[in-house]
Structures are given as C-alpha cells and as structure tokens.
C-alpha cells in the first residue's frame, strides 16, 4: 500500500486515528486538524496509476487506483473531513472522532479501490464506523435509529457481496470498471449501490437515521455515504436508462417529503435524496456532459450540504431544539449562523455566483441536449422545491418568523470557522467554476454563465419566492411527523407479524372448536345409542327375541333355499 510514489490516504487516516485516543485537550484538537491536512497533502502527491496490488484467494486486488474520477471524490472527501473536524473541535468524545476519521478513511478506500473486493471491504467498514456517529447521541431514539440503519446496510452489504461473487463467476474478474454483466450480478450490485445512494423506496434509512445522529457526526454522514454511492454509480453504471427516471423521481420525492418535515435535519436529509437524484439522473443520461455534471454536483453538494447541516446543527447545539414548530426569531442571537446557513441555502438552490449553479445547471443542460422534455420539467420543479424548503421555509421558521422566546448564544468559534470555510468554497466555486471543472475526467463544454441559463434560473427561483410569500399561510407544518417507507419495517412489519399471529390463533381455535363439536356430537350419539338407556343397550324381552329369531330363520329359509 505504500510505494515511493503512492501512500494510500486511508492508511494515513487510519494510522493517524490510532493516535487520537492517546491525546487530550489542545493536543487532540491540533491533531484533528493536522490529520485531514496530511491526507490532503498525500493526495497532492498522488500520481495517476494503480498501486498496492496483492493476490487474495487467486484474485488480484488493486487497493489504490488513482485517476481523475477517484481524485475528484478524494479531494472533496478530504476537504469535508477537515471542515467537519474543525466543526467538531469542541466535542470531548474520542469515540466520535475516531469513528468519523475511520468513516472518512473507508469512504476514501472505496473511491480509490480498483477492484470490487477491496471496495466491498471498505463499503462495510463505512457502515460499522458511521453507526457510532448516530449512537453517540446517547438517546434511546438514536440507538434504535442506529440499529435500523445498521440492519438496512447489512442487507445492502449482503446483496453487494452476492453480486460481486456472481460477477466474478460470470466474468472471471473482480476489476471495478463499468459493470458489464447481464445476469443477476448486474442487478444485485446495482441494487446495493442504489441502497447507499438512497434511491426510493430504498432511501428511508437516511431520513430515519441522519436527524438522530450527533450534531457533528451528521456533517460527515451527509457528505460521505451517498456520495461514495454516486461515485460507484458513475464508475459502474453510466448510461443505465432506468437511473434517469429514478433520479428525476428522487428529486421530486425529496422535495415533497421535505415539505412535510418538521425536524430541521430531517428536512435537509430529504434534500440529500433530492440532490442525489440529480446526480443519479446524470449517471443515467450517461453522456460526457451529464457525467461531468454528476461528478461536479457531487463535489459542490458535499460542501453546501455540509454547510447546511452545520448551520442546522449549530441551532440544535445552542438551543437543544430541532423542530421548526419550536424555533423562530433566532436572527438576533445567532446572526452569523443565519448568514452562513443562507450561503449554503443559495448554493443548494443554484443561485448564480454560488456553487450549485455551476453544477446543477450542467445536468439540466445535459437532459435538454438529450431532448428529455419530461425529465427537464421534473428537474425544474425540484429546483423550485429545493429553494422553497431549504432557503425559504427553513430559515424563515428558524431565524425569522414568530419569536420562539429562545435566547441562545451565537455558535462557538470553531463551528463558525468551519461554516465559513465551507461558505467560502461554495462562493469560490460559484465564481470560478473553472477550478472545479479542471478536476473532472472529461473537458467540460458548458458555460453556466450565459444569458439564457442565467435568465431561466433567476426567473424560476425568484417567482418561486413570490409564490412562497403569497402562499405562506398555506404552507403546512406543526408538531407532527410524516410517515415514509420506514413505516413498513417499523410498524408494517411488526403489524403484519402480529396480524399473522392473530390469524393463526383464530384459525387454530376455530378448527379446534369444530373438531371438538364433532367429537362431542359423536360421543353423545354413542351415549344415546349405546349408553345405559340407549336403544342398543336395552335388555330385550324373550318374546321379541323369539320373534326376531323366527324372522331371521324365515329369511334364511326363503333366500337361502331359493339360492
């Protein structure tokens, strides 16, 4: 894994993480910042190529494949690790820090894996490290949510492993490039990737678990799991038609359910589903422009989504509240958090000059070039919906709106610093998209800053804003939760089991009752016929005995003789 020109970034992170439990206070904080910086340095030195080959059970593993696509994700993962670590500096819980860094190391391991076996190992490692970021919240709710998260991903892992084994049998290789299999291997691996990309109806693990994670842990989670899945989809399944439609559906599903969410981080989690939908649709379109769009949207999304989660997290950290119905009027007390959150908001909404604009419009443009009218319209509705709930509804109900009476302090300096770095990057990419485009595998033949794109986007967004202002009183909400697919295994499954149990008991009772009734009738019949007073048990008078004997004899004579 280490050669003169290649040090695996995951190895650096894992080795560095081993030191974390030994450190305390200022030393640990310094280390937490240095470690992601070291990873960035390692990436800076990395040259394209394949490294760390080893034989395992007769298969050749490539633990380090460096090319443009893996580097795009490597850069942004390391950057968000640095931002997330700064955001978490005040947290005095080494388990969380260790979990976060190992989780980051696993995600990097996935994007640099050149074969499916290595990918699988890091894929599973991602699950068992990230679940601690949920459990360390320490509440019973988060413990249960973490367990559901674990179970779903365990199922996903088994599906992936089965797919990889079949793939090896079918093709004789485990190299990870475009998945070129016909049979179940194709579908199983795709299904496993789709679970991690949170494609409905396989998405509920995300919106169930992320809002229950720790304030700082959710920042890492929002960045890593779904985007490694986007990476694997770009690499393995470009041009898969089904993904165009699933992706466009995801964008709408996310924005619709976000409107029903009262918990601020659940609202933002639904917008992960929605935004990853753009990327999935781009993968499905499969053209060079669309794939560049997906990769760059993953890049910008990680930064602005981390920023949004940090803003929401800061509010939860300072107020202890996470529900829109319990927040409001915080702008006087947390103005910096408000403004920095808004930078994330306008970035995700794809306002010109901010990062989402230069990546999302590329995917939309790719759909237009491909002549996909319906897909284009669906993505446009989702754009309006994204602005509506992340940048209008959530900030309005949290920082403006009705005063909740909460009087929190502004968030600590390290949180504000982390948010400022993310906000600066969102702005930088928005102004100089060339910096991002230069990282992409294919040259980008697209300019977001043309009058046509600008006019369309601004009209769409500002008139969405107008509709929000006019219809504010119709926007739903209040102290409620909304059901989603997780109902099926949280309530539906148990209900089905108990209903099946009840049905079995009822049927069993009915069968027993009928059988017993028959038995009783039989015994009473026997009793009547053969009992003490039964007809067949009576003592008969001699006369009748003689008569019957005569009859029998007469019959014998008649029929016997005749015969």
């Amino acid at each position, binding site marked *: 894994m280490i050669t003169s020109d290649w040090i695996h970034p995951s190895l650096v992170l894992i080795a560095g993480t081993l030191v974390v439990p030994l450190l305390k206070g200022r030393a640990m904080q310094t280390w937490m910042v240095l470690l992601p910086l070291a990873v960035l340095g390692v990436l800076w030195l990395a040259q394209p190529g394949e490294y760390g080959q080893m034989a395992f059970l007769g298969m050749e593993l490539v633990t380090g494949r460096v090319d443009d696509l893996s580097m795009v994700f490597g850069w942004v993962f390391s950057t968000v690790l640095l931002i997330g670590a700064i955001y978490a500096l005040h947290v005095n819980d080494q388990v969380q820090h260790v979990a976060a860094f190992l989780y980051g190391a696993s995600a990097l391991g996935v994007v640099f894996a050149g074969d499916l076996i290595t990918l699988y190992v890091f894929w599973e490692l991602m699950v068992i490290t990230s679940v601690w970021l949920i459990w360390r919240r320490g509440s019973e709710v988060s413990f249960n949510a973490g367990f559901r998260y674990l179970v779903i991903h365990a199922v996903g892992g088994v599906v992936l492993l089965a797919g990889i084994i079949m793939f090896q049998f079918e093709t004789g290789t485990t190299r990870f490039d475009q998945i070129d299999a016909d049979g179940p291997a194709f579908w199983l691996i795709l299904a496993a990737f789709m679970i991690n990309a949170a494609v409905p109806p396989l998405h509920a693990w995300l919106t169930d678990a992320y809002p229950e994670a720790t304030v700082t842990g959710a920042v890492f989670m929002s960045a890593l799991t779904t985007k490694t899945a986007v990476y694997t989809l770009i690499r393995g399944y470009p041009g898969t038609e089904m993904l165009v439609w699933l992706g466009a559906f995801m964008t709408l599903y996310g924005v619709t359910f976000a409107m029903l969410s009262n918990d601020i981080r659940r609202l933002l989690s639904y917008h992960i589903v929605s935004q990853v939908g753009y990327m999935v649709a781009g993968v499905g379109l499969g053209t060079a422009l669309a794939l560049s769009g997906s990769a760059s949207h993953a890049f910008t999304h990680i930064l602005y989504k981390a920023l949004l989660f940090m803003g929401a997290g800061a509010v939860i950290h300072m107020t202890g509240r996470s529900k829109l119905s319990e927040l409001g009027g915080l702008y006087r007390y947390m103005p910096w958090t408000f403004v920095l959150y808004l930078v994330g908001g306008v970035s995700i909404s794809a306002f010109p000059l901010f990062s989402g604009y230069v990546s999302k419009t590329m995917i939309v443009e790719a759909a237009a070039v491909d002549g996909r009218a319906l897909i284009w319209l669906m993505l446009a509705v989702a754009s309006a919906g994204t602005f509506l709930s992340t940048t209008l509804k959530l900030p309005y109900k949290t920082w403006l709106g009705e005063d909740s009476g909460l009087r929190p302090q502004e968030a600590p300096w390290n949180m504000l610093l982390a948010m400022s770095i993310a906000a600066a990057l969102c702005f930088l990419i928005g102004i100089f998209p060339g910096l991002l485009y230069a990282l992409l595998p294919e040259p980008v033949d697209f300019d977001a800053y043309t009058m046509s794109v600008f006019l369309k986007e601004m009209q769409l967004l*500002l008139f969405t804003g107008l509709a*929000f202002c006019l219809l504010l009183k119709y926007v*739903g909400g209040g102290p409620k939760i909304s059901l989603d697919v997780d109902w099926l295994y*949280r309530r539906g499954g148990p209900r089905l089991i108990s209903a099946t149990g009840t049905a079995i008991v009822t049927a069993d009772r009915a069968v027993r009752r009928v059988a017993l009734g028959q038995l009783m009738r039989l015994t009473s019949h026997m009793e009547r016929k053969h009992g003490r007073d039964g007809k067949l048990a009576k003592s008969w008078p001699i006369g009748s005995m003689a008569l019957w004997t005569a009859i029998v004899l007469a019959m014998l004579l008649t029929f016997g003789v005749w015969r």
Partner: protein
Amino acid sequence: MKLARIIEFLISKRSLLAVIMLVLMAALVLADIILPPAYTRFPWEAISGFAAFFGFVACAALIFFSRFLGEWLLYRDEDYYDDHE
C-alpha cells in the same frame, strides 16, 4: 452584534426590499421578452417568461400537494412510533 443590527435594519425596510425585488423580477421577465430565445429545443423555450410562470406554479403546486399528502395520508402525532420502540 453588529450583524444582527444589519439584519434588523433590512427587516425594517422589508417593504422597500419587496418593491426592489418586484422591479428586479419584472426586469428579468422583460429581458426574457426582449432577448430572442437562445434555444428552442423544447417548445416552451420560445415562450418569454415561461420559467417565471413555471417557478410560480411549481412552488404553489408543491405547497398544496405536500399539504394534501400530509393531511390525507402521512401526518401522525409525534409519539406515533414511541409506544412500539
């Protein structure tokens, strides 16, 4: 708390800001009418101000559709899952 003061000031001038915003929106639509469409890949790209109309309708539709979905099917009390877990 200087920043809070600035936000306060902006909020106090919200009707002025709203007017500016409306003028800006009108200018956008006007520009869209004056400038010839860059593309006509889809029929609606030739219609001036379509994006504005579409944004407004999409937003209204999402507000009412999600509300309907919630009231009709999906909203539950917050303790809905509690008694089972």
